[in-house]
């Protein structure tokens, strides 16, 4: 046994785990998406691209095969909401992370701990908490009424805003942490240098702080955007189930719709979108390295 061999087969456990937990399940989903649906759910092995065609073309109410925008609308809405959530998270996380990074050392640990605190509670409980906050006679409504600001208001719950709030709340810690890490590494001398060179606060923020924290922001964007694409709870519990996102669409097809191959095809499409996003991000990172 020599060292070079060990470098190859020493990684075998990692490869086995990757194959069993990542490659195999994804392979099964891809195969299911190409299979033939069973009459009452389930599937039979086969090779058919019908499920992918169905995303774009479906029989209309008159029985003619026609272009159907409904699944694209759901995909588009999912991308839009995930993107908006990422932007809002970034806008809120940057100042929050900055404050944490500037805090005295003994406070820093406490603040970082507080950011991660919600993860100790189950996701469904955290989303339910927002039902209580936003609901009729909820905390917000009672407060506004108590202050005499509003007499009678429309419900905040079961709106797109509620859904967005829930998504931002759920995923913002995943943005704060990497941004905090990159701000902490920021050399204060660079900020001083910018001021010495007559850079205003705004110019300093835009041309010094932002570019230097960009890697953290991009890492956070990936961590927020990707799980948002698969969100299921928020649209149902906070959005009132009035519109579907891709996660709900996949659930419907595997459940009541009894069309597993189509559900799998949408899941593969979702995965494809995630891969495109990750690859664009990786390309950008590489470009940055070559610039530096």
């Amino acid at each position, binding site marked *: 046994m020599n060292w070079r061999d060990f470098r190859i087969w020493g990684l075998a456990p990692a490869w086995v785990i990757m194959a069993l937990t990542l490659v195999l399940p994804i392979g099964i989903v891809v195969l299911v998406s190409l299979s033939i649906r069973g009459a009452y*759910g389930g599937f039979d092995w086969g090779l058919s691209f019908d499920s992918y065609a169905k995303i774009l073309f479906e029989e209309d109410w008159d029985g003619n095969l026609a272009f159907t925008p409904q699944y694209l609308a759901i995909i588009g809405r999912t991308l839009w909401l995930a993107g908006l959530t990422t932007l809002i998270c970034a806008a809120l996380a940057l100042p929050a992370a900055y404050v944490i990074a500037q805090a005295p050392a003994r406070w820093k640990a406490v603040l970082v701990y507080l950011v991660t605190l919600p993860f100790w509670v189950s996701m469904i409980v955290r989303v339910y908490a927002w*039902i209580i906050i936003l609901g009729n006679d909820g905390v917000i409504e009672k407060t506004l009424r108590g202050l005499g600001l509003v007499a009678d208001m429309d*419900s905040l719950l079961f709106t797109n805003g509620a859904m967005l709030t829930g998504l931002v709340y759920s995923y913002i810690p995943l943005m704060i942490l990497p941004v905090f890490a990159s701000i902490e590494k920021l050399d204060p001398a660079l900020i001083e240098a910018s001021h010495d060179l007559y850079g205003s606060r705004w110019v300093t923020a835009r041309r010094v702080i932002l570019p230097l924290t960009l890697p953290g922001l991009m890492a956070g964007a990936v961590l927020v955007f990707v799980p948002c694409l698969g969100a299921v709870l928020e649209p149902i519990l906070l959005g009132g*189930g009035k519109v579907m996102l891709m996660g709900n669409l996949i659930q*419907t097809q595997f459940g*009541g719709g009894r069309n597993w191959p189509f559900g799998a095809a949408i899941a593969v499409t979702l995965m494809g979108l995630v891969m495109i996003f990750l690859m664009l991000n990786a390309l950008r990172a590489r470009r940055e390295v070559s610039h530096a």
Partner: protein
Amino acid sequence: MTMRILLTSALLALPAAAQAEGVLNLYIWSDSISPELIAKFESETGIKVNVDGFNSNEDLLTKLQAGASGYDLVTPSQHFLKIMADEGLLEDIDAHDLAAYQAVDEKWRGQWWDETNEYSIPLAFGTAGFTVNRDQYKGPVDSWAAFFEPGEDLKGKIASLSYPDEVVGAAQLYLGVPFCSEDSAEMKRVYDLLAAQKPFVAAYTSDNIENRIGGGEVAMHFWWDGNSMKTRANDGAPIEYAMPKEGLVGWLDSFVVPKGAANVENAKKFIDFMSTVENATAQYNFYGHSAPVKIDTASAKYTPENAPELFPTVKVEFSRACSPAAQDLVTKVWTQLLQ
């Protein structure tokens, strides 16, 4: 098929330890069986009972189709029971030979979902319809029109369920479209009705219904008979379960044993246990849905006088197992509604 075997062998390895004598794994509608009865069964037989809950027939079907579920006894509704039996997902337990079978009301024997009574013993039945909060809505409730074609003042004051199964059925009753219709023109009418109702709907949601309708957050909610009755009778909510002249959507849940269950004999014991007059009565008093087996009417908590919800005065039409073509139309209605 290979995948099912793969999954099965992978999953079988896990609950192998639990196959030892004295275990029963239940997968039932959430909170549908009296915990006191389960405790009583455990102390009488020494069998350890594990209970998991589901909230939709679809969840149950998907789980059984995915391969060995590890459950010994599950409680699907009639149309899903039919699909499971046809798909070979159920164990033939010769239900007609069980002591419990003698307790089953004559009219629930030999039904289309289990014609020869091989697979199932019924547990509870009831209807799906809509409930109104009388503080919020004073109008008539003798037709589905009140729910599907509400007046302007009910904008944002109606709630429906988060899956199509019974909601589409109710819309079909109202429009006179047969259940499981494969006629896309007919189903387009169902879609149009639901789409026109959507601006009035605050939420399509199947949980936390008690609070939403009982507290008056919405004026009308799609709901089940027994749940509506219990919220009115036990919590004093000012609600009324409608008896629409077009009819109500019927359901009946039964005990069945999934194919390959590890503890079939314990499952049979539990079915017999639940079907004795004493226990069936206790279950009826707990669950608040009608009992398809013999109960002691003298100690039954709910009667036609104090629980009219359970004794419909209009026709009840039971959901059926739809063909793939019909199911696709239902899914299409729902997806377009929520697109």
